[in-house]
């Protein structure tokens, strides 16, 4: 079967396009969901075949989060030890967040975070054989936007939805910001944290964002309009 970029591929399909490119002795990179079998590129997942420059990969709908380096995630602090926090990042194993990985933290000056608090952190170490390690500072030691998330509402969603609303093509967040001021963190581990000035608006915002999963990009405007009417409906 001929598999072009943009087609849905199934496990076992041969990607001729990648083979052809490779025969021209060009560099070809096989990404996620593709592997090399008998000198030809074969897909091992089902999903959309995508290509960027010389990189081929399969874009599949996945619910399970697997930590990778440089991901920004929202974690829930599960417990504390002498040196670090154990943080749940919706992976099967807990991740480590050292006390020293906060801005201005020293051995004596520990961050004031309790069990059950939310942290927005970056994955710095993702090795299959080790616990993932998180930090709440960037390479210059500044916390930037990372750190503890106070108040607000955190909810879980599919990884697909996070990717979707962060996509440049999706103007949902932009449109929403015109209706109602809000804070939002969309973390790639399938968790979104929102905060607005009123509880009611937060609840509506959560609803709207979750609904966006089943809305096409060009229909986002209608979705936001509905949000706006519901929001103003309350004020009256």
């Amino acid at each position: 079967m001929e598999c072009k970029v943009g087609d849905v591929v199934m496990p076992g399909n041969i990607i001729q396009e990648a083979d052809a490119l490779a025969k021209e002795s060009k560099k070809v990179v096989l990404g996620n969901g593709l592997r090399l079998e008998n000198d030809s590129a074969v897909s091992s997942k089902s999903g959309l075949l995508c290509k960027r420059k010389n990189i081929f990969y399969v874009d599949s709908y996945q619910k399970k989060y697997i930590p990778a380096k440089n991901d920004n995630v929202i974690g829930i602090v599960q417990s504390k030890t002498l040196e670090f926090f154990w943080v749940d990042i919706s992976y099967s194993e807990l991740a480590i967040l050292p006390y020293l990985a906060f801005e201005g933290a020293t051995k004596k000056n520990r961050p004031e975070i309790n069990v059950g608090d939310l942290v927005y952190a970056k994955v710095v170490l993702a090795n299959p054989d080790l616990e993932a390690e998180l930090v709440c500072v960037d390479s210059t030691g500044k916390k930037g936007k990372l750190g503890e998330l106070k108040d607000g509402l955190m909810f879980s969603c599919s990884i697909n939805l996070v990717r979707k609303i962060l996509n440049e093509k999706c103007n949902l967040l932009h449109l929403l910001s015109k209706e109602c001021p809000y804070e939002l963190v969309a973390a790639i581990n399938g968790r979104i944290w929102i905060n607005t000035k009123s509880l009611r608006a937060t609840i509506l915002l959560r609803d709207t964002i979750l609904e966006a999963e089943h809305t096409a990009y060009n229909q986002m405007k209608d979705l936001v309009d509905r949000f706006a009417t519901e929001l103003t409906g309350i004020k009256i």
Partner: protein
Amino acid sequence: MKDPILSNNERAFVEKAIAEKLRIDKRGLNEFRNLAIFYGKNYGSVIASLGETKVFASVSCEVSTPKTTRPNEGTIFINVEMGSQQNEPCIVVTRILERTIRESNCIDLESLCIVAEEKVWNLRVDISILNNEGNVIDCACIAAVSALAHFRRPDCTASGDGEFTIHKSAEKDLIPIVLHHYPICVNYALFEGKTPIADPTILEERVTNASLILAVNAYKELCSIHLTGVSLTSPYLIQKCSDMAAERAKHIVEYIKDALEQDRIDRENGQAKGFSQSIKLTNIPSNFTDTQEIDQVMDTENDGSGELEEVMADESFEKIDSDTVASTWTKEESDESSDSDVQVIEESPKKKGIINVMEIVDTSSDDEEKETIVLN
């Protein structure tokens, strides 16, 4: 893997919202989620769903010997499976159902007797929790009761000398179980021991940890009460909840009877639908339906214009965009590795939508060497 502990933010939000008479799914405090009952093609198999909570119940029967204390009564056995090793909630649900269904005498057990002191029918109700989005007990009770009401057992004739024959369905019509009344469990989550919330979701259940379960039938008879979790309640509240529960039970019983009647009509017309009608087909993410759009996204990515714009209207509120730092990182890396050989990399799947985030394995490191494969 056990559930991660509830975040303080979620707990605080739910509590604040309840204090303002708001719920996360926009329901009122005494509002229930949508109930649906689907009958299977076999008698006595039911899927009941309450919102996203789904429970499957199936009733079966076999001939066995009666208990010595009750020689002329059949027996009923209830088994609940949660699908995980969670022991405590499973015991609680089983015991509440046993008390609601068995100890309220809603089934005419004497009619299940074949030969006194020798052979009786033993009913078995198997309940599987397919999906737990909160309020399992209500849903399980509705499923169990409607499965029992739907069930038909083979007819049986006993001759005088203790012999009996069980007729196949082809010989004699199957006969239903006699139910005196339909007990319905109604679960109220108690916030601070005084605000009852009807039909709690899993988040609300985890926040309060205390609930009052009342089993009431359509005749306003109380069949069982159960106070679960760590809580202190006032007698006044129990009185108030039981009145609300009676109202709810009446509606549910009507609903079950309507569904049974509908199923009977469908069966007569030979149009029994089975469980296929319980499957919804709307859950396809729309960004996978349009391949054209995806292509365009990929095009824009090629331009490398990746910065997400700051879009907030209010200065005090800012949007924290996820991957600004990550994008600069990866650009450098991909430049470095551009003169390396063709490689197979483990590109993480979640990266696709986020523009220009692409991780390339650094080929100079020894660890990743085994992943570097040359095409041709």
